[in-house]
Structures are given as C-alpha cells and as structure tokens.
C-alpha cells in the first residue's frame, strides 16, 4: 500500500498552483476518506476505543494526535535521507516519543483535567500504530511540506472518526453532547454541553467497552455502505459507455 502512495506523489515538484492542488488533494482525500487511518487502515484503535466515550475526550486526544502527527512527520521527513534502514524504526520511535512527551508536558501544564482523564493514553500516542505507519509509509519518502500536510490530514481523519464515535457513544449512552466542555475550553464554556434527550434513561452499553467495539463496527459498516453505493454508482455510469482502451 505504501508503495502505491509514494508512487502517486513522486518527488518532482513543479511549483505551479494546479500541480500543487493536484498533489495535495489526493493527500487530503487519502487522510480523510480513502486511506483513513481508522476506517481503512484499522490502526490506532486503542486510543480510539478508549477515549471515545465522550466528545470532549475524543476531541482532546484527537487534537493531541494531530499535533504529534504533524510534528513527527515533519521531523522524519527532514531526516529521511540520513537514517540507515536498520535503525530506522528506533529513530522514528525516539522522535515520536520526544514529540509526544513534549505535548504531554504541555497538556499537563495547561489542560490539567483533560490530562488526568486521558491519562495513560497520552503517552501511548507513541505507540499509536497510525503514527509510526505514517512515518514509515509517507514521511520517510516525501518532502517536508507534503509530510506535514499528510500529518494534518491523517490526524484530521483520525480525529474526525474519534469525535464522531465519541458523539455517538455519548449521545446514546448519556443523551448529552459536549459534556464537561469546561475541561477543554475552560470554565466559561460549560454552556456548550447540550442535553439532547432530556430525562434519558441512559444506555450504559454505549459507554462501556463493548459499546466502543460495536460503535466502531457500525461506523465501519456505514463506510462500507457508502463505498459500495459509490462503486455501484460508478459502475452504472460506466456501463453504458463503450469500452475504450
């Protein structure tokens, strides 16, 4: 898979605007949909399932992950020509670990409650498989700008799924959205919390571990459904046309 990606985005840079768009749109599409780290690559599942029990938690970890992805992709892209294959993995891991720790410290300082809630899953961003996968598959083969953009897009793709799953679970489990908004946006933002279903019984399954698995299953099924529909539509479009080689 990695090979095909790097093939698509070769090193030749003609800095015209159209070529920029041509080069960067697929990266964005890949990150958000076609090669989404969760929906397609099935990587980074641990944090996804562990912290998606509310929107705010999801958002918090998602943002941290985006930051790590961008920074680590940038660093790795910079050093990509120096590293020898046998220590490639350890070097990447060290870089990622450094970035993560730095971000962890910042969160510890400025988003204390969020830091406490996310707990072990912040340092565990290091082993979030999608980060090392991006380092290997993309950053180590692409230019700085593209690597950074890829980091952003992959991170966004990850966060998007994380937040959607968080919203799903929070809504079904507790009937609210954005509960505890203050731990992220400060005390003034309590109002953000929306009680969508008043007097809701609460469906605990959604909040508990099994609910995380099942929620993701339904998200994936939805993605499959959309992809299938797209494919069917494409086929329908294609078939009346004569075969051109």
């Amino acid at each position: 898979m990695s090979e095909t990606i790097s093939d698509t985005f070769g090193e030749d840079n003609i800095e015209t605007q159209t070529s920029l768009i041509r080069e960067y749109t697929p990266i964005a599409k890949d990150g958000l949909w076609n090669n989404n780290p969760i929906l397609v690559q099935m990587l980074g599942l641990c944090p996804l399932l562990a912290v998606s029990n509310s929107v705010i938690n999801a958002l918090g970890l998602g943002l941290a992950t985006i930051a790590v992805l961008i920074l680590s992709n940038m660093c790795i892209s910079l050093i990509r020509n120096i590293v020898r294959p046998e220590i490639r993995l350890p070097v990447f891991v060290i870089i990622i670990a450094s970035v993560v720790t730095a971000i962890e410290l910042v969160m510890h300082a400025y988003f204390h409650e969020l830091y406490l809630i996310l707990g072990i899953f912040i340092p565990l961003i290091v082993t979030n498989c999608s980060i090392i996968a991006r380092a290997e598959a993309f950053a180590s083969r692409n230019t700085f700008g593209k690597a950074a953009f890829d980091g952003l897009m992959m991170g966004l793709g990850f966060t998007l799924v994380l937040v959607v799953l968080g919203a799903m679970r929070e809504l079904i489990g507790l009937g609210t959205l954005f509960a505890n908004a203050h731990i992220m946006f400060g005390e003034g933002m309590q109002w953000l919390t929306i009680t969508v279903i008043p007097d809701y019984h609460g469906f605990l399954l959604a909040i508990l571990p099994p609910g995380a698995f099942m929620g993701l299953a339904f998200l994936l099924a939805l993605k499959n459904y959309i992809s299938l529909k797209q494919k069917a539509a494409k086929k329908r479009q294609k078939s009346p046309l004569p075969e051109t080689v």
Partner: protein
Amino acid sequence: MLWGILALIALAAFFGLLLGLAAIVFKVESSPVVEQIDALLPQTQCGQCSFAGCRPYAEAIAAGEAPINLCPPGGEKTVQALADLLDVDVLPLEEDEVLEGPVVAVIIEDTCIGCTLCIQACPVDAIVGAAKQMHTVIESECTGCELCVAPCPVDCIEMIPVKKTISNWRWPEPQYDVNNEQAANIFTTIEKVLAESTHP
C-alpha cells in the same frame, strides 16, 4: 537535567551499537514468499497480469508492487489463495469477464502450413512438429494461454473447451439452498427429464 540528556544519549548509543551489530549478524534471505506465491499462480505464463510470466508477477506481489488480483487465468480461487497466504483482504478480480472452463488449443491439421510460428509463441513447448511438418498440440501440456493463436498466419489454431466426459465429470457444488431463488426449480428439472423420457 543535563544528566537526563546524557543518560538517554548513553542508552541510545548502547542501543545503536546493538542494532549495528544486529544489522550485520542478521541475514534476511531472499524471501521464500516468492516461491510460495509462485506456487499458487497457475503457471499459464500468459502475461495477462502485465508481467513477463508468472514468476515475475510473484516477485512483484512479494515486493508489494502489485495487487493480488491481476491473474485472470487463476480466477477467484487464486486471489483467495493469495489473500490467505499473505493475510490480506480478498480483492475482486480486475477482469470483468469470467473464463468459462478450461480450454486447450487445437491445430486444424488441414490448414496448418508448418510455419513453426506457434511453436515459438508457446511458452511451455506444448506444440510439436518440425518446420513444414504438420504441427500438433499436446493436449496434456497446453495451458490454454492462447498465445499461439495470434501468431498463426493461417488462423488454424482454435481454442476449444476441454471435452466433458464421464471421466473428467465432476460433482457440481450443490445449489439447492433456501437462499438460492432458483432452488425450488432445480430438481423439478430432473423430474421433468424423467417424465420426458418416460413418455417419449
């Protein structure tokens, strides 16, 4: 604080030494995966996969350069087997058309002029005959790749389906299943056949 940096540098250096050692001590032999993949390909050598024969395609798959669904002669079966071997998802075959059963080449003997072009085209030497002699296809060797059809100057090579006989007849996969909409009609066919033969 400086200690921290130093400690980690020391640790990393130690680790680097170790890995440097490992890089040499390790030898990763040419991956046996290629062999395994090659063994799964039908060896028709037809090149429909866009590679020069089955082995190059196997190498490409092993290197991650080609998807597993490019071999039409192998069909779904091969894709499935490759997916199992490589632990990846099954992809639908690239080709839309489905091959109908095995075929072999036959040379229409009256037309053949003995030009040997087909001999040269055949990747598995399944055609025998010397120049100006009539050529013939050894049925048991022919892989049905059709490569000999195009070069023949007199169009005397035809691909024919392998004849169905009692000895190569196979029990079909049962279709008599509630999920199969035609299931209910399958066996009335038999009864009809019998009824017909009973009252001719």
